Every structure is written in structure tokens, then in C-alpha cells.
């Protein structure tokens, strides 16, 4: 009972922090997107709090954490009253409506998410990367009041040098009385699924939206990481959300959407630092979009630079600065980078291995189910029969390509990212992007139009 109340309190505080972020950015979203985005932003804010306390050499204790959380929520909500007025007038009267045909897929989704949430709550953190890194650091931070603690006196692996996104959230939730922390992952999962449900419904009939979400949630690897805390699922969530707002910026040209997209990409980088390489691969799309909207070459270039600033800043603070100036052990990041870039052999080999061993193989079906084949079926149908790609579909297809080609590049630049662990999990990012493409695809739009028509028997 107390756990439930504490969870509710933390969730409300995250909601308020996220609301504050959206109000400062002056972004109004429709109701279905508003709450999940607030929660995701709130979790992102919370994940920075213990880390910032550590950077400022402030002891990490329940009283300092609580004070910091409350201060941050108050500070972010500087525009609270005017933002509330805007939201009220934008939404009008609230009417919760679930149509009959939504029920089957919603029941399946709720069933899968409930199991996921239970396992996330019940089981202790399991992945070795977590136990040997963020979880150990968080556990001893609670005991010793600092993220730089006795864990570093033991023989450690590179896992203790990963950015402190998970460690920070584990510290907050363990401090609040959850012995295994972790339940914040369920908040991210549920928020993201709700976000996707409403985002997909903008273009596709809800019967197909429910089906798409079931396809995605039943990807075996993805479903497993909805209750096993590791970096890859949160990274996929923030990466997808960033792209959603970036592509909306392409359409509506509102700068606040651009900034929200850049911020979310920064958070995705804070979760997994190599994401900033992928953010650079998105720049050609941004650059072209700016030129198409009659911006000069230099303004287009400036937009590209500004987009990667949050990602670079968070990378710089959480990796080189933190490791070199705070941690008691050295970890030369530069030694992890491939120095023989002239030899492209490993790049092509990694690309081939991803296809032959991870995706198009028996192992691929074990990891990812039939999802990629469903995506390819939709893509081929669009290419052969529909032969029309609207701008949104092209944007999401580009995003899919960024991951599909970006991961071989990452494996080539950072050989430490092995195939059957880091790359296998890193490819989780591609699934929400494929879902977004499919919802915007010609074939899904065709079916949606047919489903909108009245039928009587």
C-alpha cells in the first residue's frame, strides 16, 4: 500500500516536472500525447538530479534528493498558471471514449503490459551489465551518500563507466523505498505505449494501431527489456520521441518542436552515449528540410549544429568530464574507438553479419519474431502496388535507414559494440520507427480509409 502511494507520488512529481518542461517550451499537445510526454520528460529530468548533485559534490541522501526534486519541479513550473489556462482552453471538455473495435487489442496490450510491470516490480535487476555497473553504484550510493563509492575499490569492468541515467533513477527509487528500484521502467513503457497509440492514431485507424502495437510488444527481445532494466529500451523511447517532434517540426515549422526534439535526442544520448553518432546521421534530413523551407545554406547549417548541441553537451558532461575529472579510475574512451578507419573491411563485415546473423536468420526470428518481415511486406506492397510515399512515411523510412545503416557504422567505429549483445539490443530502436512508418504507409492508409467507411448488414 505504501509502495503504491510512493509510486503515485513520484509519478505525480514526474508529471509536474514534465508539465513544467512543456510549459517552458510553450508546447501544447493534444490530451492523448500530453500526459505520456510529460511523464517521459519528467523521468528524464529525474534522471539528471542525482547526477547533478554528484557533479556539485552535494551528498546524495533522502533529504537532498527530496529537496532537489521539489526545487526542480517548482523551478520548471515558473509558467504554471498561464500554462494551465492554455491547456484548459485547448482541450475543452474531457470525454473518455473507447470504441468497441479498440477493445480486443487494448485487452491484449493491457495484459502484456501488466505482466511486464509485475515482473519489473517483483524481480531484482538481472542483466549482468546492470549488476556490474549502474545497479551496484546505485546500491552503494544509498549506503555511502555518493555515486563515487566503494564499488570503485573492487575489480570493475567498463560497465561502471556508462552514463548515469539508470544509476540516477535507481538511486531515486531505492531511496523512496523500492528495494530493487526499477519500477520507473514500467512508467517509461506505459507512457511510450500510450504515446504511440495516440501518435499512430493520427494517421491510421485504431484497429490497425492496436495491431501494430501488439506486433511491436511481441518482439521477444523488446518485450523482455520492458521489464529487464537496461539502457536500450529507454534509449529507443527517447530516440523515437525525438524523431516524432523533429518530423512535426518539418511540417509545422514551430521552433519549440525543434527544441523539444533536440532535447529528447540529448536525453537519448545521456542514456546511451553512442546515440550522438546516430543524431549526426539525421542531419541531412534536417538540412534538406530547412532548404526546402527557403532557409539559406547557413541557417540550415546552424539548425543542424543547434540540433546536436544538447546531445553533445550531455555526452561531454556524462562521459569525458565525469570519467576524467570525477571517477577515481581511469577509462580512456579514445582507446575504444577504431583507429584504423582506412580499412573498411570491418564495416562491410558488420553490415553483413547484422543481416545474416541477427536479422535474416533463425536467430533473428528468436530475437525479433516476424516483425521485420511484416515491415518488409508493408514496404514492398507500398513500392510495388501503392507506389506513393507521403512525406511522413518517407521521414520514418529515413529514420529506419539511419538505424539499419548506422549500427554497422557504430560497430565499425566502436568495436566494443559486439554483435550478439550490444548490437542485438541496440536494434530495438528500429522497431518503434518501423511501426511509425507502417502507420504512415500507403497500404495502411488505404486500409484505414476502407475501415472508416460505414458498413451495414
Amino acid at each position, binding site marked *: 500500500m505504501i509502495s503504491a502511494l510512493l509510486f503515485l507520488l513520484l509519478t505525480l512529481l514526474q508529471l509536474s516536472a514534465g508539465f513544467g518542461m512543456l510549459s517552458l517550451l510553450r508546447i501544447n499537445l493534444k490530451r492523448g500525447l500530453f500526459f505520456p510526454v510529460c511523464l517521459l520528460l519528467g523521468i528524464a529530468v529525474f534522471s539528471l538530479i542525482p547526477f547533478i548533485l554528484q557533479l556539485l559534490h552535494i551528498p546524495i541522501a533522502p533529504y537532498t534528493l527530496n529537496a532537489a526534486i521539489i526545487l526542480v519541479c517548482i523551478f520548471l513550473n515558473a509558467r504554471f498558471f498561464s500554462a494551465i489556462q492554455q491547456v484548459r482552453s485547448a482541450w475543452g471538455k474531457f470525454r473518455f471514449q473507447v470504441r468497441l473495435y479498440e477493445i480486443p487489442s487494448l485487452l491484449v496490450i493491457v495484459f502484456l503490459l501488466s505482466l511486464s510491470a*509485475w515482473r519489473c516490480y517483483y524481480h531484482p535487476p538481472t542483466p549482468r551489465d546492470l549488476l556490474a555497473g549502474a545497479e551496484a553504484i546505485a546500491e552503494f550510493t544509498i549506503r555511502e551518500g555518493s555515486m563515487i563509492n*566503494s564499488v570503485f575499490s573492487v575489480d570493475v569492468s567498463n560497465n561502471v563507466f556508462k552514463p548515469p541515467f539508470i544509476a540516477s533513477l535507481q538511486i531515486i527509487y531505492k531511496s523512496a523505498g523500492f528495494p530493487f528500484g526499477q519500477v520507473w521502467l514500467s512508467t517509461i513503457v506505459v507512457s511510450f505505449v500510450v504515446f504511440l497509440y495516440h501518435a499512430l492514431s493520427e494517421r491510421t485507424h485504431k*484497429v490497425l494501431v492496436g495491431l501494430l502495437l501488439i506486433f511491436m510488444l511481441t518482439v521477444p527481445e523488446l518485450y523482455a527489456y520492458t521489464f529487464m532494466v537496461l539502457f536500450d529500451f529507454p534509449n529507443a523511447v527517447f530516440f523515437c520521441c525525438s524523431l516524432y517532434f523533429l518530423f512535426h517540426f518539418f511540417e509545422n515549422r514551430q521552433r519549440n518542436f525543434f527544441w523539444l526534439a533536440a532535447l529528447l535526442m540529448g536525453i537519448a544520448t545521456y542514456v546511451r552515449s553512442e546515440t550522438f553518432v546516430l543524431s549526426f546521421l539525421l542531419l541531412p534530413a534536417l538540412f534538406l528540410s530547412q532548404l526546402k523551407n527557403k532557409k539559406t545554406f547557413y541557417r540550415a547549417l546552424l539548425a543542424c549544429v543547434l540540433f546536436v548541441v544538447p546531445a553533445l553537451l550531455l555526452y561531454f558532461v556524462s562521459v569525458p568530464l565525469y570519467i576524467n575529472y570525477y571517477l577515481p579510475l581511469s577509462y580512456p574512451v579514445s582507446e575504444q574507438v577504431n583507429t584504423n578507419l582506412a580499412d573498411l573491411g570491418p564495416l562491410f563485415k558488420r553490415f553483413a553479419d547484422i543481416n545474416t546473423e541477427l536479422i535474416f536468420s533463425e536467430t533473428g526470428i528468436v530475437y525479433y519474431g516476424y516483425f521485420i518481415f511484416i515491415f518488409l511486406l508493408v514496404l514492398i506492397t507500398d513500392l510495388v502496388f501503392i507506389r506513393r510515399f507521403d512525406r511522413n512515411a518517407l521521414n520514418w523510412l529515413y529514420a529506419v535507414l539511419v538505424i539499419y545503416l548506422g549500427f554497422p557504422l557504430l560497430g565499425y567505429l566502436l568495436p566494443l559494440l559486439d554483435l550478439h549483445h550490444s548490437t542485438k539490443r541496440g536494434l530495438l530502436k528500429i522497431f518503434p520507427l518501423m511501426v511509425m512508418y507502417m502507420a504512415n504507409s500507403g497500404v495502411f492508409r488505404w486500409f484505414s480509409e476502407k475501415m472508416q467507411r460505414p458498413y*451495414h448488414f
Partner: protein
Amino acid sequence: MNRNWLLFFLSIALITGYFLLPHNLSWFRERPIAYTNDFFRERQKMGIEERLTGRFGGRYTLSKYLAAELRKRAGNGGRVLLVPSTSYFKNYGIDYHVPEPVVFYYYTKEHIVWPDSPNAIRANWYAHVRNGQVVIDSVTDKQTLADTLAFFNKFEIAL
């Protein structure tokens, strides 16, 4: 029958068809159905130690045993335990997946080193198998430690 009902049955048909695909059906049985059965059992076992033991099994319980033995034998003095590899224990019929030092520290708050670690020379206690039991003994001198390390390093050391 109007549109809503038609779409309702269409939705059920599509979802059912999807889960009847071979791999999806076996996944659904091995995961969601199994997890549902686990839930009814797990809600009767809510203790923290029960959950840790249930999840980590022998690697947790044996680690806790070694740590308890170390505290009992070594007292409050500085203590570093040398623990041989998983393959060593397997060779002697003990099913113990040795966690890496930081994970052992997370489980037990005790320091261990692996035989291939440059810090292995700091060990003042070592674990080994005697008469089918896992025991710990103190390091009496540098030569004993060196001989012990040489022996332990003959066994494959891996995560």
C-alpha cells in the same frame, strides 16, 4: 451488423491469426502464459531474500555463504577473498557460477578477486573445494598464494 461490430470481429480475427503463427504461438506459451503462472506463485513469496534467491539461485546463495564464512573466520580485519573460476568448481562437482568481483560485492559487500586479476596478490583468504565442500582458508605466505594462483589459473576463467 454495423461497422463497429464488423471491425470488432475483424480485430479479434487479426489478433488471433497473428498469435496462431508458429513462432508467436510458442512465444506466447513460453512467455506471457508462463509469466501468468509465475505470478500466482510469486505473489506468495514477497520477501526480498526469497526474490533474490529465486532470481539468482546458486550464484547468490553460495556467494552469501562464502561471505558469511569470510566474516566469521576473518573478523573485522581487511579481507580480500580469492575465488577460483566457475570451471574450477565444476571440475569438483560444485555448480557455482562465480560472479565477477563487483557483482559479488553487490550481493555481499565483500571484496573478492579472480585468479587472473593483477590484484590477486592482495588476497589474504582463498576459497577452494575440500572433500566436496566449498571452504575458505587464510593465505599463510606469499609462496602459498603464488602456488594457489598458479593452480587456479589452470582452469578457464570466463564470465
